[in-house]
């Protein structure tokens, strides 16, 4: 991966004008697919304008790749049209289901890590990749419940899925941290199990600690423990593009740039030590 796309931010409407006014502070942006799957208007205008200056990735929340409902062909067609418009570096969504029986829960609901689920998801990933004509990048989600039915660990499931479906992985470092706390597993075991050649991108984000569990809220700065885990991730997967996700309590653009500088500093420090 070239240095040009090392460190990115989520594209948020609150920052459109400042992004346009301060070129060069961020090397790429990740746009939320559903926000731009609309007929027209200001968001699409901004997307087109900023796309001229920056590489972009598309990141969706509604693919529902693990659902037992049939794939939503209308959604896939709209997504394909957006992909043709944006020509993203890659296209990602989440390893989860978001509803069934035609009802969308607008949440990233975890899958049981079973052989049955693995077969089901792998088949659907291949169908989506065929439809879109490109590889899919799937993100590990934060989850709060542990299924009694799970037969595999989350990392075994993801690594095997990537291999079977020939897809790539978006490693959300915060989500690994959150799920490791919630499910009482070793975050490093997760990281070490990821197939190096398939890790396409890192996510970093903040969360809300409830004492007995952590909720993935994306509304706070990244905590020191997640920065530490990120340093370990960079050691294992050097050169993978990183971006910071903030979806609520959106701070001034300068605050996110400062957080991104911290990611740069950590990555540079790890790289120096490795050299």
């Amino acid at each position, binding site marked *: 991966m070239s240095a040009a796309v090392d460190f990115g931010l989520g594209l948020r409407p609150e920052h459109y004008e400042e992004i346009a006014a301060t070129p060069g502070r961020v090397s790429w942006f990740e746009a939320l697919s559903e926000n731009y799957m609309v007929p027209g208007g200001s968001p699409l205008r901004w997307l087109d304008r900023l796309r001229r200056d920056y590489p972009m990735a598309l990141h969706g929340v509604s693919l529902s790749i693990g659902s037992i409902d049939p794939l939503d062909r209308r959604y896939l067609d709209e997504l394909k049209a957006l992909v043709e418009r944006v020509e993203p570096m890659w296209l990602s969504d989440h390893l989860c289901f978001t509803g069934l029986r035609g009802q*969308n829960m607008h949440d990233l*609901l975890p899958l049981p890590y079973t052989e049955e*689920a693995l*077969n*089901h998801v792998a088949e659907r990933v291949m169908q989506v990749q065929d439809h879109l004509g490109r590889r899919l990048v799937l993100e590990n989600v934060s989850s709060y419940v542990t299924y009694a039915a799970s037969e595999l660990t989350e990392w075994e499931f993801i690594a095997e899925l990537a291999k079977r479906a020939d897809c790539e992985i978006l490693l959300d470092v915060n989500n690994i941290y959150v799920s490791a706390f919630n499910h009482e597993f070793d975050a490093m075991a997760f990281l070490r199990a990821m197939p190096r050649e398939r890790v396409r991108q890192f996510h970093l984000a903040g969360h809300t600690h409830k004492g007995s569990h952590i909720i993935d809220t994306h509304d706070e700065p990244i905590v020191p423990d997640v920065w530490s885990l990120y340093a370990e991730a960079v050691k294992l997967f050097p050169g993978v593009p990183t971006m910071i996700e903030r979806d609520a309590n959106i701070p001034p653009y300068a605050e996110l740039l400062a957080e991104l500088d911290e990611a740069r500093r950590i990555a540079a420090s790890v790289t120096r030590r490795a050299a």
Partner: protein
Amino acid sequence: MSSNAGSLGDLQRAFQDYLLAASDGFQGAVRDTSKADRLTLLDVYRDGYALRLIEALTTDYPGVMAMAGPADFDHMARAYIASHPSRRPSVRWYGRDLADFLSSTEPYRRTPAAAEMARFEWALGEAFDSPDVTPITADALMALPQEAWETLAFATLPSLRRLILAFEVPQAWQRREEVQPGDLLVERAPGPLTWAIWRPDLVSNFRSLDTDEAAMLDALVEGRSFPELCEAVAPFTGEAQAPARAAGLLRAMVEGGMIAEYRY
């Protein structure tokens, strides 16, 4: 091919039913941790479902929020959520039926201004991300040969919406951030008034229409020719004044950026 049968399907159905509070049968499918019991953890999902949809409604309906206040809005939103499953992948479309819900459901139907506010705000939202079309200019019309006006007809911008409002909703909507939530008063208008909402470029516009203008716009949207637009205006102005009035109204619509194209 995976089917809806089997444990994955059973588990997903049970989980969704649990989130919708239709069944508590799912609890046995998940485990306690050493730090938290399963009900606490399941509540993260169950609470989150309503909160996300309430947030979407709050974003789409700031005027209704300003009228109702947070507590009543929350109560209303939960009643809407309970009766309106989300059918689209994007939460952008979730609030589409709120105006109909408010106008047909007790106790909200007793405050008809709330349903009108919802209808107005949804139309603004639709205009916001409707297809982009560049409006025609008055100069283009002026350059047409005289005979073109015998058959000249128009199409409006895709963003154009017309609403008949009995309350002074747009005026109140403009005050929505000046009052404490719950304090926005919406007065009844002296009579029902037609409002147009449209987006000529990036910013949405709205304005009220005179009675003859509303009649003419109705005819224009139906694809009627300019002589027929004059006929639509005539009952209000008299035959003699109708062509000049229709031409003036048309010019205002064109200069306001409401008209997408013409044909003759």
